[in-house]
């Protein structure tokens, strides 16, 4: 568990994200530089944007394996969501497998001319306020009313400026909770919650599925009767030019879909059992060949 938290924060480092372009040697294969007339060179590179969220890794690895089978090189660049969308828009990145909607609507609006939602991956991603299972009396956000003291009047969220940070503030206001949201990062939030759960103290934080913390910690998403947290949809987002540059990849991605359970099971293998992400993905591809074949366009 700690390992995943550590990796998460290490990677979620915004600073790291900022310099990621400089560090990643694969970036010199910027997609728009690569196509110099060679229609089907077979050596084109498809660049995947990878956010530090655990949910991004499995679908990205699976898609990368398939795209490599189609004869392309792939590269993965780590950055936080904002930078991934900026990279997609500028053409440095071609594909992002983990676009969350409506949470990421603001990015799609900002870059509507250059990026598009290509396929619906799954539409039953849960998100919301999370408390430990040992808090028997708290089953909905309303149950927190009047109990804010025991939570130290604090709610733990992810980064300052993330779209869900505003939503959490709205929740606090709408439910008239006497709480302040403390923002840090995914890893920071989880570490703080774990610290408090160590001594079975009350704690409320933001959570979403798929996420391995639901396997590692006894926690529950509590009800939200006022509809702040509907199930999210996860889409594949691509740069507009991908359809021209690599039509077969584009078609494969537009057929993409993957079960939330499948993704969570891969996350657990990667994080719980410390297995190599690529290896887990390869195994999955092998076992689900039929499903993959249905997504791949027929030759000519």
């Amino acid at each position, binding site marked *: 568990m*700690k*390992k995943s*938290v*550590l990796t998460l*924060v*290490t990677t979620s*480092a*915004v*600073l*790291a*994200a*900022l310099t990621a372009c400089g560090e990643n040697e694969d970036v010199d294969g910027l997609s728009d530089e690569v196509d110099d007339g060679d229609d089907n060179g077979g050596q084109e590179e498809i660049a995947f944007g990878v956010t530090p969220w655990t949910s991004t890794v499995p679908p990205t690895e699976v898609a990368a394996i398939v795209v490599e089978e189609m004869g392309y090189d792939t590269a993965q660049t780590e950055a*936080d*969501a*904002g*930078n991934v*969308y*900026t990279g997609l828009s500028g053409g440095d990145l071609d594909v992002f497998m983990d676009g969350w909607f409506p949470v990421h609507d*603001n*990015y799609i609006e*900002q870059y509507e001319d250059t990026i598009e939602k290509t396929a619906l991956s799954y539409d039953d991603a849960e998100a919301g306020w999370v408390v430990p299972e040992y808090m028997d009396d708290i089953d909905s956000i309303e149950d927190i009313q009047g109990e804010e003291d025991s939570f130290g009047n604090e709610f*733990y969220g992810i*980064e*300052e*400026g*993330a779209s869900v940070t505003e939503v959490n503030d709205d929740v606090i206001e709408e439910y008239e909770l006497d709480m302040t949201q*403390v*923002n*840090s*990062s995914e*890893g*920071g*939030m989880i*570490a*703080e919650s*774990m*610290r408090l759960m*160590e*001594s079975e103290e009350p704690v409320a934080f933001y959570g979403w599925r798929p996420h391995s913390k639901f396997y590692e910690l006894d926690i529950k998403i509590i009800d939200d009767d006022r509809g702040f947290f509907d199930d999210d949809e996860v889409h594949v987002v691509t740069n507009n030019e991908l359809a021209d540059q690599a039509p077969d990849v584009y078609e494969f991605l537009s057929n993409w879909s993957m079960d939330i359970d499948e993704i969570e099971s891969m996350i657990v293998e990667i994080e719980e059992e410390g297995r190599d992400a690529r290896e887990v993905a390869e195994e999955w591809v092998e076992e689900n060949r039929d499903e993959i074949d249905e997504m791949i366009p027929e030759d000519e």
Partner: protein
Amino acid sequence: MNYFNLPLEDWTNWFVNDWLLPNFSGFFDAISAVLASFVDAVTNTLLFFPAEVIALIFILLSWFFAGRGVAVFSLLGFIYLGAVDVWIESMQTLSIVLVSTMISVLLGVPVGILAAANAKVERAVRPVLDFMQTLPIFVYLIPAILLFGLGGVPAVIATFVFATPPAVRMTNLGIKQVSEDVIEASRAYGATSKQLLLKVQLPLALPSIMAGVNQTIMLALSMAVVASMIGAPGLGSIVLNGISQVNVGLGLTGGLAIVVLAIMLDRITQGIGQKL
């Protein structure tokens, strides 16, 4: 190269989760509470006075130690902080910087003195300092939260680890640079070791020590954004906010405020070093 398997990962996890946290969480909570009230006290003091009073104090300090030009810069800087409405955040950042600098200096200068006096201490301290300066911050950021909770306290701890080495190094260097002749002369006049240290070596090393303090403050300010990732309030969270929303303007607004504070504190501490 994989001759044998080093289970460092498991060991560390065991050490932190199964030994350190269960046995010492009370101890760390106590440290955390003390530091938190300290940071809060400094923040509240800075915010208690009207912004104009704080600004005036810093402008006068700039004038006295660094000259009229810097005073004008400070004035414009404070007007900027007010004009982009980041006063509270600036004071929150300033208080974390002040508290961590204070701890760094209180612990770093004596260690530097010891290292200058004793070659064995120096040999032991050096690799520790290298370690503190180069171990990526994010490696100890999360353990800091596990031990001290979210907020200003882990930020102070992380800043302390990162910003203390120059205080130690420059103190060490400053004392060693005091010329042999001066020391011999003092000895000849019958100075005891204590007198030698307090009345000769430390005063002569002061410019170098102040240069170390100056570096410590600069490093502490450069941690502002990182600190906001572990829940410390301040200018860093404005920058982080800007970054995650791809709001370039907001990022620059907060970033420039950090630069303003940095230049001002840099000039003032440099000035103090030269005047002394």
